């Protein structure tokens, strides 16, 4: 079977400063991939290269065997959606209006949304539990609610691939679990492939079936959470002391931080 996303010798960054150096990797349909690594290791840059926000300097990203930089922008956006850390919106759009914007890649200019488009938006709102917010103003929502609405918009794009850049970094643990559980459900029930940048190693261990550990713009280690999240790997990359235990409930790796001060 062909991979959904093939990354070949990818390099790129900003103003000639190369952040990502020669990364190659394959992502299969149905994967839940976590990109982890210390600050400045290139997590967000990699995500931006994969999601076409940034053009590569060298190498290519193939989505279903097509080079993404040669795809039409709208065509790409029908296949891949993006959820940022947090979205601040200056204008008082309603939740329904925001979610329906997800249909833009599927519509021509001035083409009104049809029944099918509205159906998809409704489904997305049902899945993300945002239907009751429909008439509300996006500025009046809490950050957890707002992030669910943004995910609903991304789902309305009807993508096969969903990129997320630390989608839970502004949320408390209750809301973090709510968002990640939602993503897990979409991954399991709808076969949505997810590529997500995460800070929290234990969240990556809990939710991802594959983890990419980045260091200095290169893949330091890639594999299942058990393979990647060992104390040797983490101590080398993060330069800090940790103990890796097993989660008592599902025996996935559990990282415990250790202070150097007594």
């Amino acid at each position: 079977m062909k991979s959904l996303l093939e990354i070949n010798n990818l390099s790129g960054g900003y103003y000639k400063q190369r952040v990502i150096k020669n990364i190659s990797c394959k992502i299969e349909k149905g994967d839940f991939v976590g990109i982890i690594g210390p600050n400045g290791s290139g997590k967000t840059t990699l995500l931006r290269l994969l999601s076409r926000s940034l053009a590569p300097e060298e190498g290519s990203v193939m989505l279903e065997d097509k080079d993404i930089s040669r795809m039409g922008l709208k065509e790409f956006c029908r296949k891949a959606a993006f959820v940022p850390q947090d979205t601040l919106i200056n204008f008082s759009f309603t939740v329904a209006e925001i979610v329906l914007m997800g249909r833009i890649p599927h519509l021509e200019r001035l083409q009104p949304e049809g029944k099918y488009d509205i159906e998809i938006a409704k489904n997305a709102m049902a899945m993300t539990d945002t239907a009751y917010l429909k008439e509300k103003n996006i500025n009046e929502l809490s950050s957890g609610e707002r992030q669910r609405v943004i995910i609903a918009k991304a789902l309305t794009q009807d993508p096969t691939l969903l990129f997320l850049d630390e989608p839970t970094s502004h949320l408390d643990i209750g809301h973090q679990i709510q968002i990640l559980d939602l993503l897990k459900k979409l991954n399991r029930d709808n076969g949505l492939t997810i590529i997500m940048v995460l800070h929290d190693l234990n969240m990556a261990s809990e939710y991802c079936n594959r983890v990419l550990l980045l260091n200095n713009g290169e893949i330091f280690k890639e594999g299942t959470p058990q393979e990647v999240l060992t104390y040797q790997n983490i101590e080398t990359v993060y330069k800090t002391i940790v103990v890796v235990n097993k989660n008592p409930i599902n025996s996935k790796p559990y990282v415990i931080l250790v202070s150097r001060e007594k």
Partner: protein
Amino acid sequence: MKKKVIILIFLLLFAGALGIVIGSVKIPLKELFLEQNRSIVIMRILRVLTAAISGAGLAVAGIALQAILRNPLAEPYLLGTSSGAGLGAVIAITLGVSSLYMPAAAFIGAILSIILVYNLARNNNKVPEHSLILSGVIVSVALSAIIVFLISMSANEALHGMTWWLWGNIQVFNPKLILAVAILVTLGIAVIYIFCQDLNAISIGEEEATHLGINVERVKKIMIIMASLITAGLVCICGIIGFVGLIVPHMMRLVVGPNHKTLIPATCISAAIFMILCDIISRVIFPPLEIPIGVITAVLGAPTFIILLKRRQKIG
């Protein structure tokens, strides 16, 4: 929604009729349509038309700039675009260029000033909203000063005097030019409307819009060109009129919401009404004197600006 639009169209017709009936010269309604008054009626119709297109044009230019800069305070006057256009036009007249080429000179002035303001405000590829308005106002003041200087040095009658340029006036001088500008402004508004979905997406964020398949840089360029074109055309027929692009879009967002698909048509009609009414006020408040229309829009616009600013500080 349809109901609101019908009400607006009705109000527009009413305001238009009012603009034709009322003037600085009092003529009883019975006598207005007599042969001897025909030229007055034609002048008033032209005047109502000028007011309508200048309102609609300035307000839609404001909407386009607000969306691409994600800043509800952006507006052709406050960003210095109007002054840039004014300076271009004044230079053209001083050099003795034919009046039909004046909009071209105004367009160059408008686009140069918008680029200047944007780059003055930019810091590390970000454009903080307060510095955008600040640099807009500074550029506007500087360019207005040059306009005043050029007009003081010139004896050219086609310049209509300083107040005309700095505070605007809807008086009809050149029907041909008005017609040309009306076509230009209508085209500009139509192009902006075609991009209404793109503007919705960009107003929630540039990266977000890119992820919805929108070529943001291209849309921004087209919007800047259209807003400059509209402003340039209008400055040539009615001088610099401020705040219209701030007041009317703001009111209409409260009435129909921020979705550009409905916001643009609703704003078009209500801005036309707004300007026709402002023009009537400017004619009747101290007859036979006429108050420059920019004075009236500024008196209404300044409080609107403060309300918007205070609200944004609360959010920020």
